[in-house]
């Protein structure tokens, strides 16, 4: 858990330079409330208190990562209650939750504060003025996320707002675009993800299948005509990378079998593209993962690990 947390630190630090110091405050509030809620729930339910295993802190960071940078500090607190108490401890604590707690928290916040969660975006900073959004500054500025612009105003407006070509990819890859706190800087997420892959904490199956499906389907259906979408843009915008590396890969809520992991990833990718293009929200990976979460145990029951050798005459 602590390693995963460490992998999430680079995007967090970069987010301070992209959106200002308040991202750090939101993350801190989120982490502290998650840890507190975890401790209180465990105390109330008479379980050993395990806040030191880092799982609550990780959920806290992830909740902060999937909310816009301009929201009130109250939001992560409420999200923490939903994620940790309702989403995790009522179902039996760590390991038994069906849905990814952080995303459950986000879904709850999106339903409760739809305006803040869909409009509190901030234009990225370019001058290291990391304190400029603190205090009253937040209300005055708004921005639209790339996917929202694409969905509501079309590709032309997108190009006008974010440019095109290599510059666009670079700024998106680095993270200089409006978006949730932790989702923008593709480079840092990929870096952390690759480190986790290298250390063997995760396998390639889920991230590759999720991102591959998103890229493929966006290429096929994403453009004006068939097969004219921009796969790279689809992967870099929204929370695709964060979702693929840190949310979809969550051990507890994803399948354990490799085959089911691939199917699970493809399902997430397909649902993401479906919601992005036809659904009610500009970004769909949050709901795509939530919708696939309950399927992970179903998939695992279909694809059992390959047994060494079945008994003679088959299983009894």
């Amino acid at each position, binding site marked *: 858990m602590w390693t995963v947390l460490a992998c999430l630190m680079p995007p967090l630090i970069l987010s301070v330079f992209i959106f200002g110091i308040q991202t750090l405050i939101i993350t801190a509030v989120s982490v502290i409330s998650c840890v507190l809620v975890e401790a209180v729930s465990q105390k109330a339910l008479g379980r050993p208190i395990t806040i030191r295993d880092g799982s609550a802190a990780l959920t806290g960071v992830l909740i902060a990562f999937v909310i816009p940078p301009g929201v009130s500090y109250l939001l992560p607190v*409420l999200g923490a209650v939903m994620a940790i108490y*309702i989403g995790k401890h009522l179902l039996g604590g760590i390991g038994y939750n069906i849905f990814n707690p952080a995303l459950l928290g986000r879904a*709850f916040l999106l*339903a*409760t*504060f*739809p305006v803040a969660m869909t409009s509190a975006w901030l234009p990225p900073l370019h001058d290291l003025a990391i304190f400029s959004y603190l205090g009253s500054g937040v209300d005055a500025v708004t921005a639209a996320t790339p996917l929202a612009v694409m969905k509501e105003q079309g590709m032309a407006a997108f190009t006008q707002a974010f440019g095109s070509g290599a510059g666009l990819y670079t700024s998106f890859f680095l993270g200089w675009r409006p978006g949730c706190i932790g989702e923008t800087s593709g480079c840092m997420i990929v870096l952390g993800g690759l480190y986790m892959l290298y250390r063997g904490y995760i396998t390639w199956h889920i991230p590759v299948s999720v991102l591959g499906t998103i890229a493929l389907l966006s290429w096929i259906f994403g453009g004006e005509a068939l097969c004219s979408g921009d796969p790279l843009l689809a992967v870099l915008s929204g929370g695709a990378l964060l979702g693929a590396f840190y949310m979809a890969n969550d051990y507890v809520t994803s399948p354990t079998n490799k085959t089911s992991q691939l199917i699970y990833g493809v399902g997430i990718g397909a649902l993401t593209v479906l919601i992005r293009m036809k659904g009610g929200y500009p970004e769909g990976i949050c709901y795509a993962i939530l919708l696939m979460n309950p399927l992970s145990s179903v998939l695992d029951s279909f694809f059992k690990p390959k047994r060494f050798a079945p008994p003679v005459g088959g299983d009894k």
Partner: protein
Amino acid sequence: MTNTKSIGQLLSRGILSENPIFKLALSMCPAVGISTTVMNGVMLGVAVFFVQVFSSVTISLFKDQIHPRIRIPSYTLTIATWVTVIDLVLAAYMPGAYAKMGIFVKLIVAFAIITMRLEMFACKEKVKDSFWDGVGMGLGFLVGMVVIGFVRELLGSGTVLGYDVLGFKPLLFFILPCAGFFVVGLMMAFFNWIEVFYKQKRGVRS
């Protein structure tokens, strides 16, 4: 089931110990579905109340005439009749409230609680007892709906019975469909917890 039950017992059973929503967990659909405001809860609760009372009384009145083999169809017919009547009356005289409740009024016909009371109580007991049993159950349902409606309305829109009490909308979530599940689930757990708590307390005392 003992034959002699006081009115108080019959009432309290329906409202507390065998509350159709929190204890028997029957007829959950409206409890989750339209309990976004107290008023909705009251309206449907009243509708269910009348259907329950009328059906209980009807079945109790005709219990000797009902052939045991067509028991269930008779119950269904009776309930459907009374639901139709209530439905028509509401549609005619309270169109505003009726529009809000959608098809849930008509769906009272599929409520397990009503059939269950008819089968377990009204077909055996005296008219008066059946009446009070129906009243108890109907009230129990009403109370459940009001409680859930109160929580959801207060938290969701900051109002009670339409009157603004908080002055702001705390958590929009609670008037959304999915919150109904959470509220009912948490309340059921709360009632379970109270029961266990009191049993323990009583156990300690005795």
